[in-house]
């Protein structure tokens, strides 16, 4: 807990590197979508928590996703401050763990939590129509786990490298 005041004293670099990391993550995931490697769109999934309007969902989702990027940046900083080291590979490791958690723990339970997502047990309804992600998000394309892990590893690596001078390499 003693690291929290320390983190707040380093808000500026945390925000800056979180912004850069989130931009890189978004670029990788959107690029994967554009190149046909995966149909996963995390901003769209987040946005449809709040609205069924596709355009608004994408806009809201992108804003929430950016806010999520800052929040996780803060958490990454706390973890690195706790272990007393920050560098790109520790960041990449954290990012990979983060990605794995998303794939194995978050996506599988999403159909039960997301108000607009259908489940393979109940099928679609008037409200719940989004395709469920399936194991490791494989329903969104068999390269989805790979692109998700790479995106998060890059996110973590950027944060780790950026935080090095503030935490110590």
């Amino acid at each position, binding site marked *: 807990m003693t690291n929290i005041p320390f983190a707040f004293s380093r808000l500026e670099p945390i925000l800056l590197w979180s912004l850069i990391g989130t931009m890189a993550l978004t670029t990788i995931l959107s690029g994967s*979508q*554009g*190149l*046909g*490697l995966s*149909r*996963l*769109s995390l901003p*769209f*999934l987040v946005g*449809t928590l709040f*609205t*069924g*309007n*596709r355009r608004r969902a994408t806009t809201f989702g992108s804003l929430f996703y950016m806010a999520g990027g800052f929040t996780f940046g803060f958490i990454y900083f706390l973890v690195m401050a706790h272990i007393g080291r920050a560098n790109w590979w520790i960041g990449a490791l954290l990012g990979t763990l983060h990605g794995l958690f998303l794939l194995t723990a978050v996506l599988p339970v999403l159909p039960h939590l997301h108000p*607009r997502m*259908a*489940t*393979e*047990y*109940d*099928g*679609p*309804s*008037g*409200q719940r*129509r*989004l*395709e*469920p992600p*399936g194991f490791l998000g494989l*329903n*969104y*394309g068999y390269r989805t786990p790979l692109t998700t892990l790479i995106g998060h590893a890059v996110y973590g690596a950027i944060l780790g490298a950026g935080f090095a001078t503030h935490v110590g390499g």
Partner: protein
Amino acid sequence: MEAEALHQPAMAVPGAAPYPPIGDYAMIGDCRAAALISSRGSIDWLCLPHFSGPSVFAALLDQRRGGCFAVRPVDAYTSTRRYLGDTPVLQTTFRTPTGVLQLTDAMPILVDERYADKLQPQREVLRALEVLQGEVDIEIHYAPRPDYARRRVALKGRGACGWACSDRDGLYLLNTDIPLYLDPGGIDLRGRVRLSRGAKRYLSLNFVKADIGVVMPLGEHADGRLCATQQWWQAWAHRCNYSGPYRDAVVRSMVTLKLLTYELSGAVVAAATTSLPESLGGVRNWDYRYCWLRDASLTLGAIMDLGYHTEGDAFLGWLLHTTRLSRPRLQVLYDVYGETEITESSLDHLEGYCGSRPVRIGNGAHEQLQLDAYGSVILAAYDYVKHGGELDVDEARFLRGLGEAVCELWRLPDHGIWEIRGGPQHNTYSKLMCWVALDRLLRLHAGGKIRIPAERFAAEREAIVQAIETRGYNEELGAYSAFFDAAVPDASLLLMSRYNYKPTHDPRLRATFACIERALGHGDLLYRYPIGADRLPGQEGAFVISSFWAVDYLIRAGQAELAQQRFERLLARANDVGLYSEEIEPESGAALGNFPQAFSHVGLIIAALSLADVERVARDAA
């Protein structure tokens, strides 16, 4: 329009699988993509995500490999079908010895407020089955073959969310309340179900590209989507201001044009298909899923004359903006987004309709010089202004640039309206359209709508007249000829009167009509040019729009009664749901060429509008 469909025998060519006649198909669509459905309940053609995208069902071009989505009774049956009111919602009724099955097909358009906050897939094909009488055993065959059947993709069960298959970033999700099972190969789904009177079932095919899929619910939700789609189309058709004779046929033609309009850009594609042959088993197989500038003026005129100004604005907007990439030179055709690179290639793994190879995608005509495109675009803009539209500064500058290009280019030989491959020639129709281009620009200039170097344009216009009259008119033929210094009749020259190149009663125009009738006529039908003029083997059918041009000419020539009789005979040549292909085989009446063809329906609308004018004048006089 409601029409009874007789079950026609399959077309069989030695060595090829039997195919339904081209006229056996009806089209459904959502103004982004279109599907062709046979009277046997099989979707044999569907390209996604838009008209010129790769096919997922292409049994139309290869019954064995192409892929289809069939719903039909197991027992012997007869089928009839109709469109519901003025909509493209298709209803096929199958009568079997044990009962009556009704199949309703649509691609939903859900734009009203009820659906504003409901997630929708990019495209949906919705099929609703209901048994009206007795008991019917029904079979389903779902065989998606994405990317023109170049890929064999595995189908995977998604529990209560149906069945999925993916092709790169495209996802096809089939949701149904009918139990289906996978064929051993893993790429086909089949099912059989016995339904009794009153029972309803649904099949919903959902497509998304590069996005998370959406699975549409069935039951009352599906009924709601069908109902909303019908309401949307009825409201749209209600905007048609046509009150003349043959209204059903005119509205059906306008609905067909709307179906072939790509809503997101306003572009109108020439047809929904590729490579349906102009001669069975022959090589005249072209990809028409693009937008030809040549069709622009007549299409825009038809749209505006029927009161669809929003669609007219969108089409002209597409026309003027899409040509920015190549201006002031015009390319012959563009895709729905204005893309100019439309490379032609052949799909050698598909046998083609009734063995008609090659199956082509893309269109090599985009590299041709077709001077008539300039006249068509300028005439479209002129008609737009005539209907009250305003040109902005950039559009006016663009039109002037086109005029400059015409002055520079009109003396060159080109490939002409019929896109005959081989060396370019001096096509009289192309010179005529260059004259139209300069003439309409001069009229717009006189009306203060644009500023052009009027003296120069007028001098060039006169020079074109001199060229047409001295080299385009052939004394031996006794008519205007297809090419300069030649004696070849050409049906496109019937438009000389429509474009006010000369008064209809001018002796040379009358002689040209008589010559075309004599050389190219076959009853109510006209060939577009003499057999063999296109330097390709085999014989193509009579050209539908040319046949309607003859009606238009006769009306202008004061022979309204004859024109009306001819028009009615042509109406009888539509298929059972009012659709026309590009060509018709005169003896058998069989549809040939790509289907349905926008230009053929434009011809019908133009002729009907001319007939309505005559009727109105006669009524006013009385």
